[in-house]
């Protein structure tokens, strides 16, 4: 707790902060509101009337379901790949010293520092050079590049905080390599992996740029939305889907935040 907690901020600062927050979040609220409008061609304000019909219409649109299912599958598989590769990489970088260790840790982090458009173009030209047809798997590969980073960062931080002698203690007490991973390493990094995995899932779910370059004819949810905005037909359907997307990505991130926060406390008390 800060010692100057009792001091309140000046009124002007409060108003400025309130305006800033409103500027950031009101447009998102508007998206939600337009999901209930009766007007389907233009986003008219004030709303001419309220209706729930768009939820039913969205439910019955096969293209929405296809996009959603593709997005969920891509995100799920990218996340699984990221969990395996990110954890292995973090374990190697934090547990042992080898030639090129710093380079590898930099190269792993690079994809999030790199603009998505660069990653996208690079992957697209690589795929066409290798004559790999665009498919579900090319999207997964594109997404995995930045999902690995998220898991890696979480895992590496946790590995650094857990004492190396824990693993030795486990061996010493008779646990072989697999048992040590199962009963000693995994419980200690589980929350970090869960948090990293959820973040990776959320990132993959709303990714646009890399997907544009690596997808063929398939549409993930964000790509489908962009298409929908271009042709004005049943516009509020987009808003309904947007609400779903916000929920699907927001909840995991919130959960990840709470998990790592608790995890820190657990790891801290063990020292």
């Amino acid at each position, binding site marked *: 707790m800060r010692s100057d907690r009792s001091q309140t901020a000046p009124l002007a600062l409060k108003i400025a902060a309130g305006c800033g927050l409103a500027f950031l979040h009101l447009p998102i609220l508007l998206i939600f509101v337009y999901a209930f409008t009766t007007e389907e061609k233009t986003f008219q304000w004030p709303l001419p009337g309220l209706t729930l019909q768009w939820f039913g219409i969205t439910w019955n649109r096969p293209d929405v379901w296809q996009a959603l299912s593709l997005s969920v599958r891509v995100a799920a598989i990218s996340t699984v790949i990221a969990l395996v590769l990110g954890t292995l990489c973090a374990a190697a970088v934090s547990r042992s010293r080898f030639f090129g260790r710093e380079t590898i840790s930099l190269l792993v982090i690079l994809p999030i520092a790199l603009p998505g458009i660069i990653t996208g173009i690079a992957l697209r030209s690589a795929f066409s050079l290798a004559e790999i047809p665009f498919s579900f798997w090319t999207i997964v590969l594109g997404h995995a590049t930045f999902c690995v980073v998220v898991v890696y960062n979480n895992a590496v931080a946790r590995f650094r905080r857990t004492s190396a002698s824990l693993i*030795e203690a*486990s061996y*010493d007490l*008779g646990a072989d390599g697999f048992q040590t991973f199962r*009963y000693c390493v995994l419980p200690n990094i589980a929350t970090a992996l869960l948090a990293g995995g959820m973040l990776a899932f959320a990132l993959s779910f709303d990714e646009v740029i890399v997907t544009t370059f690596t997808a063929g004819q398939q549409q993930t949810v964000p790509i489908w939305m962009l298409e929908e905005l271009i042709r004005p037909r049943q516009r509020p359907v987009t808003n309904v889907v947007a609400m779903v997307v916000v929920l699907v990505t927001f909840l995991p991130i919130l959960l990840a935040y709470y998990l790592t926060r608790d995890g820190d406390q657990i790891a801290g008390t063990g020292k």
Partner: protein
Amino acid sequence: MTSAVSFTRVSRYFGAVRAVDAVDLDIAPGEFFAMLGPSGSGKTTCLRLIAGFEQPSSGSISIFGERAEGVPPYRRNVNTVFQDYALFPHLNVLDNVAYGLMVKGVGRAERYRAAEEALALVRLPGYGTRRPGELSGGQRQRVALARALVNRPRVLLLDEPLGALDLKLREEMQEELKALQKALAITFVFVTHDQGEALSMADRVAVFNEGRIMQVGTPQEIYQRPATRFVADFVGSSNILPPDFVYRWSGQKRWGSLRPEAIRVNRSVNQEGVRARLVSTNYLGAMIRLALDADGLRLHATVPAGVVLPAEGELVTLTFNRENLHLMEEGA
């Protein structure tokens, strides 16, 4: 009789550094064995070689007659109490203690019963449901001890087990460890840089320096008859006497050592002995430690507190019994 632990010309190199250099060592079953030395002297590496965390670069190690090279730590009947205790933060105390039995597939009820017994042995009964983070340093150390002992190891390794404890607790644990070792009749091998700890607890002590063993012997042998200048200097605060000085008293040109408590300080300057000037006095409680200058040779003597002391700068005569002057094996 087979040794509990036996090293034959064991070396361990880290790159160009010889952490352990051609060490021969035999530890008897049921012995309380101390490895004493300054940091970087190779004593901890020796412990890790016994535990199996390190493999020797050359030489051979056997534990109760079985060759240990290439045997992973989890297949050795040896357990370690780590310096930082290494308790699993995600498990409570009972599960920590039962860990070794759990990975061996012992049933829940049985392993918890054994873990409770081990906790009772280290005088922490009923602490099973606590988390390691809720315990004090001394309690964590006891849990680490219980966690190792529950596996009934043939050799228990202790890596600076008392290093993180405060003085009072350390003295208490010293007695307790000693009593525990006697009661369980398990071979204890412990590493320490604290000579007092090694002398007071161990049956035998090995003094390490620069990857080699300087001397192995009982605490009395190590203390009273140090083999080299290093041992004399490291184990206690012995006076190290140069060959010329020793020659005058014993007729042999060898390095010698003389314990501070063996020196008598006389205020008269007319008798036979070593002339010296008193430089300073240090009050140690029961004893007073005198720093003396004998014609350029710095000597220390301890006298019981309460005796009348010469003033600083005063000339005194030092005497000692000839048998207290120990000649070291190390040549001039």
